[in-house]
């Protein structure tokens, strides 16, 4: 069954992500589903190929989930990659969504981890509404299909 994201959901997600960016100094943030589809993105350095980044992130998480299974873990819920200038923090939100936080050396990893813990609850509520109810707004459908 397909997933529909309404304008209302989208606005709520964007508010959460904008708040997160302003409180952490992360420069960009992406929400993707575990099959590699991009749900939302915010930030000021998104000239990178975010669709390829989404596909690779989902694949990376899938591969790491298999490593977890081999080690007898149900799942690894976060991943962190550190570069010379750019860093990426991946965190799982519920069953279906991965949050990708991109930040440079001006942002603090500790603060990002702290703020992610805060934002995850709020995002989980919105995302569970999208993924579990799979509700599609009647007005949009009757207008377009």
């Amino acid at each position, binding site marked *: *069954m*397909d*997933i*529909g*994201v*309404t*304008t209302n*959901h*989208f*606005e709520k997600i964007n508010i959460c992500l904008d708040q997160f960016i302003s409180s952490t100094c992360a420069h960009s943030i992406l929400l993707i*589903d*575990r*099959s*590699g*589809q*991009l*749900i939302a993105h915010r930030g000021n350095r998104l000239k990178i*190929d975010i*669709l*390829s980044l989404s*596909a*690779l992130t*989902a*694949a990376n998480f*899938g*591969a790491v989930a*298999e490593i977890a299974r081999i080690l007898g873990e149900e799942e690894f819920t976060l991943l962190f990659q550190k570069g010379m200038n750019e860093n990426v923090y991946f965190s799982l939100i519920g069953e279906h969504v991965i949050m990708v936080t991109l930040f440079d050396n001006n942002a603090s990893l500790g603060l990002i981890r702290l703020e992610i813990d805060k934002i995850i609850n709020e995002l989980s509520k919105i995302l569970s509404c999208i993924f579990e109810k*799979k*509700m*599609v*707004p*009647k007005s*949009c*459908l*009757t207008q*377009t*299909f």
Partner: protein
Amino acid sequence: MGFINFSKNEIQCKIVYYGPGFCGKTTNLQYIFSKMNDETKGQIVSIDTKGDRTLFFDFLSLNLGKIRGFDIRVQLYTVPGQVHYDTTRKLVLKGMDGVVFVADSLKRQRTRNIESLTNLAKNLAEKEINIRSIPLVIQYNKRDLEGTDSEILPINLLENDLNSTLEVPSFPASALKGIGVFETLRSIGKLVVKDVSRDIMVLDKQFKS
């Protein structure tokens, strides 16, 4: 699992190219990438080994234009064809909306084609998906070898091996020369969009009731 963004009026779909090793899945994507305009395509991403074999997947994002006000964005993936990469194939199949099965026309690959199609059906069944219920198209690749020293299988034999019960659209092709590549893509694109539209109608009915 199509992803419908009502805020951006965009539908994202995932199409997976499946088939035995060296059948030409990556070549299909490379040909599509080489012929599409820059405005409609993203970068092609490949995770392969030095021997040209796909290790994880290839990925290409395309914008197929608008249908009823919605931008249709299609993401094409390939899977590794080698038998021992089954876990990777299952990962790439996650959330797919349609499959192109690329069969190798070489006579020596006959058994591998059948094994790969059976493997696709098994991997879908593990996700509680019946192969007959998904948008599926079969491509008989390497038809350009007809008339050369390489022994290739006639189309009717390939149809009998792979498509006698599925009865899905099928296309002779040469991914290397570009023959049949876009016919295959158009066919699976239509089936996927039709399927996603039908799902939306079902959701709409559920919402009304």
